[in-house]
């Protein structure tokens, strides 16, 4: 393997690990705040117990997310010093703002998790809301920096260096709106369904436990609403990519020829050498319709671009299929939950529906990983779209196999232990009688 491949592999690994915790840091605080708000409104102890447990889960996930995010901010320089030398003075604004959002999240999470007995209930709830706000804003700021890599704006290129930098225009780059909306919804859908999946799993074993019923209701509402909205945001994103990064769209769809009325391919395996995509189920004119809302629109194919400016369509197309499939499954289950629970909440706890929620548990996180594969591999060979190639950004330091192996080992161990801890924390099962957990009795472990 070349040093470039090793640097990319290490960055991908660090990122794939961090994104799971970052997503939890955006979604979990909202869940715990909803539970605490319900407790303050109704006085039912089941909500307080839930908020405490979700708060502790958030604390562990946020801690790992905070330090793995620190690693990434340094690794930008360690692995891609030439990228940072070029872009540091251009994309600093969103990173600086992210620093403050992150500060807010850390300060108020400290107050939230350790302060149950130390601050008034109102201040405690306000602290929780600020954690949630800080989490959402951190995500938005970091993703707008990534959006700039997809649609660089706000500077002019003079002798290979950025000049006339306008930091606000950099942050408000063309892709920032579609990308941040898509990622924020994804974070809510992924964390909502992951949590709902855990509680649905417990409900299959203890169908009468009100604790898990309440938890499932909150997590599924958050995850379900986000999942149902996500296709709209996905449509906006895809149409944006079609206009601004046509080569990425072509790779996502496995579209080689440039044609009017291009078909939508479901599945299939692109063959870059033969410039064709095989084994796909083709829906005539579907791609033109989706990408441009016009069945006869022209879609530019991969073949229209020089070979050294094309991403590898195989992982991009496959990851895109995975992301869309997961997204559709979540949206369908979210919509089904809304219909089932509309009249009678009890119907949410039927075995078939619980099984569906359990099956959806990991799909949101899988979709997030797949989506990042699409956007990052789909931008290659550029690190900054049409401005800087990834191969020109990489560090001149050699022997990158060593740090790659080193961090992989550390992250494997951390991942295993974080998963064990979460199983203990989220899977614990305090018993509250069913009937929406309105019993005044103290919880007991079962």
């Amino acid at each position, binding site marked *: 393997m070349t040093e470039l491949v090793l640097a990319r592999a290490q960055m991908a690994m660090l990122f794939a690990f961090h994104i799971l915790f970052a997503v939890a840091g955006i979604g979990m605080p909202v869940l715990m705040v909803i539970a605490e708000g319900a407790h303050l409104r109704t006085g039912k102890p089941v909500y307080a117990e839930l908020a405490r447990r979700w708060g*502790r889960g958030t*604390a562990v996930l*946020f*801690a*790992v997310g*905070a*330090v*793995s*995010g*620190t*690693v990434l*901010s*340094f690794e930008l*320089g*360690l692995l891609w*010093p030439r990228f*940072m*030398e*070029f872009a*540091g*003075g*251009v994309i*600093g*604004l969103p*990173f*600086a*703002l*992210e*620093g*403050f959002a*992150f*500060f*807010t999240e*850390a*300060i108020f*999470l*400290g*107050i939230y*998790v*350790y*302060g149950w007995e*130390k601050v008034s209930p109102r201040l405690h709830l306000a602290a929780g809301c600020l954690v949630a706000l800080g989490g959402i804003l951190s995500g938005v700021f970091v993703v707008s920096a990534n959006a700039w890599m997809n649609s660089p704006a706000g500077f002019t290129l003079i002798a290979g260096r950025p*000049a*006339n*930098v*306008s*930091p*606000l225009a950099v942050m408000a780059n063309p892709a920032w709106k579609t990308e941040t909306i898509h990622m924020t919804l994804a974070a809510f859908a992924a964390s909502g369904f992951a949590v709902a999946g855990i509680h649905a799993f417990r409900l299959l074993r203890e169908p009468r436990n009100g604790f898990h019923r309440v938890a499932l209701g909150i997590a599924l509402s958050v995850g379900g609403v986000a999942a149902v909205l996500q296709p709209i945001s996905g449509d906006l994103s895809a149409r944006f990519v079609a206009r601004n990064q046509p080569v990425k769209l072509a790779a996502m769809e496995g579209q080689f020829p440039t044609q009017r009325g291009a078909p939508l391919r479901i599945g299939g395996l692109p063959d870059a050498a033969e410039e064709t995509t095989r084994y796909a189920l083709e829906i005539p004119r579907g791609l033109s319709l989706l990408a441009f809302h016009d069945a006869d629109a022209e879609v530019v194919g991969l073949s229209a671009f020089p070979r050294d400016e094309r991403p590898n369509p195989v992982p991009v197309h496959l990851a895109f299929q995975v992301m869309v499939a997961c997204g559709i499954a979540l949206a369908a289950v979210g919509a089904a939950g809304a219909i089932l629970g509309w009249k009678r909440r009890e119907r949410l706890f039927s075995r078939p529906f619980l099984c569906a929620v359990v099956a959806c548990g990991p799909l949101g996180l899988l979709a997030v990983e797949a989506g990042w594969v699409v956007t990052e591999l789909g931008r290659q060979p550029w690190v900054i779209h049409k401005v800087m190639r990834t191969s020109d950004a990489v*560090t*001149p*330091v*050699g022997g990158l196999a060593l740090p790659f192996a*080193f*961090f992989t080992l*550390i992250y494997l161990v*951390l991942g295993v*232990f974080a998963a064990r*801890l979460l199983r*203990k*924390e989220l899977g614990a099962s305090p018993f509250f009688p069913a009937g929406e957990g309105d019993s005044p009795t103290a919880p007991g472990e079962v």
Partner: protein
Amino acid sequence: MPTLPTLAAGCILASLVLYALTGGADFGGGVWGLLNHGPRAEARKRLIDHAIGPVWETNHIWVIVAVVVLFTAFPKVFAVLSTALFVPLTLILAGIILRGSAFAFQTHRLHEEDGTDWWGGVFAGASLVTPFLLGVVLGAVSTGAVRGEGLSSVAGGTDAWLAPFPLSVGGMTLSSCAYLAAVYLILETDDPELKEDFRRRALGALVLVSLLSAAIPFLSPGGAPEFHRALTGSWWSVPLMGANALAALGSAVSLAVRAYPLARACAASQVTLLLAGWGMAQHPYLVRPGLPISSSAASPEMLRLLLIILAAGGVLLFPAIYLLFRVFKKKALFGR
């Protein structure tokens, strides 16, 4: 009026000072967890965990602020340092992620299941290695061995950081962290025996810090010649060293007579003066000798906006941090 790049460099130094005073003490707490033997070991461990728990993540973010201001205001310097100091920075990252995760895991009592305090050991070990290497990096920046001509020319070198001067700065950083932690911890407890435990530790660490800060001027003529000339030959050299010696003396006396809040103020001043002295001796360079503050900065528009954001963010942030410490460090910091 200082220039925009100088102000931005000042912000990096200020974040580092705040990181040392808060996050540094959290590292020091881990060090005392590692050197925890004899009677009351369990009570000391509990006190340390209790003191660090609610605040360490907030304290940790100062280092992120320092890095973000560095790469935004001085992207070239960030690229050069990341390349030249690849090895120690990579090890620092390993330390940061292991320490943070280990603390979260042990706080939530993962070890009770298998009976061993494995993560406590990881936390303590990472608390030792990370501040040491952070100090090594600061020292390496001053040696003059990190040059800014081109990234390829600095890649993979070890002589910038694997040398007596940076290693001794690392040792001083580590002992300063332990010193701060011991002094802070005295005020975190009412138990007179625990107070005495940490008073003895604070005095021991103070001796170590004083010896190292006296030794470094003897190492720097060879290890960091230009830095040495600036540190010892400027108009502020004598007042700075005098103030530092006074703070050390004040800390020693107030620890001896058990005037702990004064001891804490002296200890914090000592660490602040050490870092301020480092920063003033680096001036007007970020990295001696190739990367001056003035000519390696980003555009003035970016610097101006960055400084405005830092100021505005500070206005929002400091009350929040005050609230955090008010809630959890009420007795230690506010006396009641």
